[in-house]
C-alpha cells in the first residue's frame, strides 16, 4: 500500500526538515503547516514574504521554507506594510501571537488594518505568553492563572481580555476578519480555507485579511495537549466565539 500512487497526505515541501521547537501539541505547529500547505498549493513559495514576531513564533523562519523578515516585538505589521507597498506583486503575511499583536503591537496592527494594507495577518491567540514562561497576555481570561496573575486575572488589577479581532473587524480597511481554531480535523480544514482566502484576498487589493486562530498552550496552561484542547473548548470559545466577523 505504501506506494506513491496511494499517497493521500504528506508533509508539504514548504515546511523545512527542522524539528519545531514548540512544545508537544502546540497549535503553532498546526498553523505553520497550514500556511505552508496554502503556499504550496497556490504555488507562491517564490513570491511570499513572511514576517515573524517576537514570542514563540519568532523562529517561524526556521520552519517555513520561504523568505522571512524577523520583526521587533509587535512591529510586524509595519514591516509588512512597507514590504508589500514596495513589492505589490509579493504575498506578504505577518504571523503574530497575542502579546505581539494585541499588547505591544496594538498601534501597528490597528493602523495597518485601518490603512487597508493588502497583507495577511495570522494572529495566534492562546491567552498567555508562552515564550517568556506563561505570563498574562492581553487576551488572558478573567480568573485565568498565569505566572503574573497567580491568583487569576483580576479585572480591577488587570482589566479585561482584549477582543482585538472584534475591534479590527470594525475597521473599514479590513476585508476579511475571522476567528478559527485547530483542535480537530474539521476546524483545521476550516482554518486552512480561511488562510487560503486571506492569501488570495491580498492580491485583489481588497484590504487587510485577518485570521485569528484560537490555540492552545499546554505548557502555559499546565495541561496535557488533549486536556488543553478541551479547556479551550470550555473556556476560550465562550469568550472568543469562532466564525467570520467580516467577509467582503
Amino acid at each position: 500500500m505504501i506506494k506513491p500512487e496511494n499517497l493521500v497526505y504528506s508533509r508539504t515541501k514548504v515546511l523545512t526538515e527542522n524539528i519545531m521547537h514548540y512544545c508537544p501539541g502546540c497549535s503553532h505547529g498546526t498553523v505553520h503547516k497550514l500556511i505552508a500547505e496554502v503556499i504550496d498549493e497556490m504555488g507562491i513559495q517564490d513570491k511570499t514574504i513572511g514576517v515573524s514576531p517576537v514570542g514563540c513564533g519568532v523562529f517561524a523562519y526556521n520552519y517555513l521554507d520561504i523568505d522571512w523578515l524577523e520583526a521587533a516585538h509587535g512591529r510586524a505589521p509595519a514591516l509588512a506594510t512597507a514590504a508589500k507597498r514596495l513589492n505589490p506583486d509579493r504575498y506578504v503575511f505577518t504571523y503574530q501571537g497575542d502579546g505581539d499583536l494585541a499588547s505591544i503591537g496594538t498601534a501597528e496592527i490597528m493602523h495597518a488594518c485601518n490603512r487597508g494594507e493588502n497583507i495577511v495577518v495570522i494572529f495566534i491567540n492562546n491567552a498567555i505568553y508562552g515564550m517568556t514562561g506563561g505570563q498574562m497576555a492581553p487576551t488572558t481570561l478573567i480568573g485565568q492563572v498565569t505566572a503574573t496573575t497567580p491568583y487569576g486575572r483580576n479585572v480591577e488589577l488587570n482589566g479585561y481580555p482584549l477582543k482585538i479581532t472584534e475591534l479590527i473587524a470594525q475597521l473599514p480597511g479590513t476585508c476579511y476578519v475571522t476567528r478559527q481554531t485547530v483542535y480537530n480535523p474539521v476546524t483545521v480544514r476550516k482554518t486552512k480555507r480561511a488562510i487560503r482566502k486571506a492569501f488570495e484576498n491580498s492580491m485583489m487589493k481588497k484590504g487587510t485579511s485577518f485570521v485569528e486562530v484560537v490555540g492552545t498552550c499546554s505548557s502555559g496552561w499546565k495541561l496535557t495537549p488533549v486536556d488543553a484542547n478541551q479547556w479551550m473548548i470550555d473556556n476560550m470559545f465562550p469568550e472568543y466565539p469562532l466564525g467570520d466577523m467580516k467577509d467582503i
Partner: protein
Amino acid sequence: MEKREYKLLKGNEVIAIAAIRCGCDGYFGYPITPQSEVMETLMELKPWETTGMVVLQAESEVASINMLYGGAATGKKVFTSSSSPGISLMAEGLTYLAGAELPCLIVNVVRGGPGLGTIQPAQSDYFQATKGGGHGDYRLIVLAPASVQEMNDFVDLGFELAFKYRNPVMILSDGMIGQMMEKVELSPEKPRWTNEEIEKKYGSWIVKGKPSTRERHIATSLELDSAKQEKFNQKLVAKYAEVTKNETRYEKIMCDDAEYLIVAYGSSARISQKTIELAREKGIKLGLLRPVTLFPYPSKAIQELTPQLKCVLAVEMSTGQMVEDVRLAVNGKIPVEHYGRVGGMIPSPEEVLNAVENLIERK
C-alpha cells in the same frame, strides 16, 4: 554638458527633492517640528505618479523605522526623517536594522532636549547618533551637513554608504539647517533601481520571495547561540573598522599654520568659520576642523594636527558631547575645552571668538 539646476530651498525641502531625484523607493515618516517639510514636500510633489516612489505617513516613529526595516530588507532605497524625540522612539528600530545589517537612511533634524525640550535647533543628539541610541554594540554611519547643499548631497551619499556597508546611515542635521534657505545645485536625476537591478546587486541577501534555486533569506538580528552572536559582533566591528578606514570625511579650514583649533560640525561649524575670519583679522592663528562624518570620527586628522596646536576648542550646541571624542583624539597632549549654547540658543561668531580668546588667555 549637462544643464545645472539651481533652486532656492529650505534644508528640509531639499531632502525630499534629493530623495526623489536619487531614485529613492520609499519614505515613511511621522510629522515632528522642525522637519515636517520633508514629508510635506514629498506629498506635494507626488513622486508616486512620476518615479513610483512610495510616500506614507505612518502612525508613529516606531512604525516609520520598522517600515524602513520591511522595505530595506527587500533591497529598496528607503528613508525616514524625524527630530530628536522621534529619533528616541526609533532607537529600537535602529538597533534592529543595524543587527540585521539593513541599508537605510534616517534624517535627524535635531532640536533641543531633553524630553520634549524645544523646537529650536540644537546639537544635543551627538551621543545618541554616534554612540548608539539603541541597545547593543552597533554604529550608525553619521553624516553632518553644514549647508543646504550638503543636505542635498548627503541623501545620495547616504544611500550609497548604506548599501555599500549594509548599515543604517543617519544625516545628523539640526533645526537651523533644516529651516534655512540657500541656493542649491540639485543632483542629477537617477532612475529608481529596477527589480532586476536590485536582484543583480543585492540578490545574495534580499528578502524578496525564495526561488527554488537558493536557500531562504532571513532578515533577522536574533541568534541564540552565544558563540555565533559573538562572531557576528566581531564581524560588525570589522565592518565599522572598514568604514572608518574608507569613509572618514572632514574639512580643514585655515589649519596649515594654526596654533589654535576649533572643532565643530554642522551649524556650529558654519558659525565657527566666521569666527576664524574674525580671529585672523586679530592675528590669532585659529583654524577649523569640521568633521563631516561623525561616525567614523576624524580622530586621526585631529591627532595629526595636535603637535602644532596649543589648545583646542570644541564648539557645539550641546553641553559637551563631541568634545569627548576630541579629547580622545588629542589624548591629553594639549588642553581641550568645550563651548556651547543649548536649549535652542545659537552662538554668535563673536561669542565663539570670545571663548577662544578666554581659552588662549588661560593656557
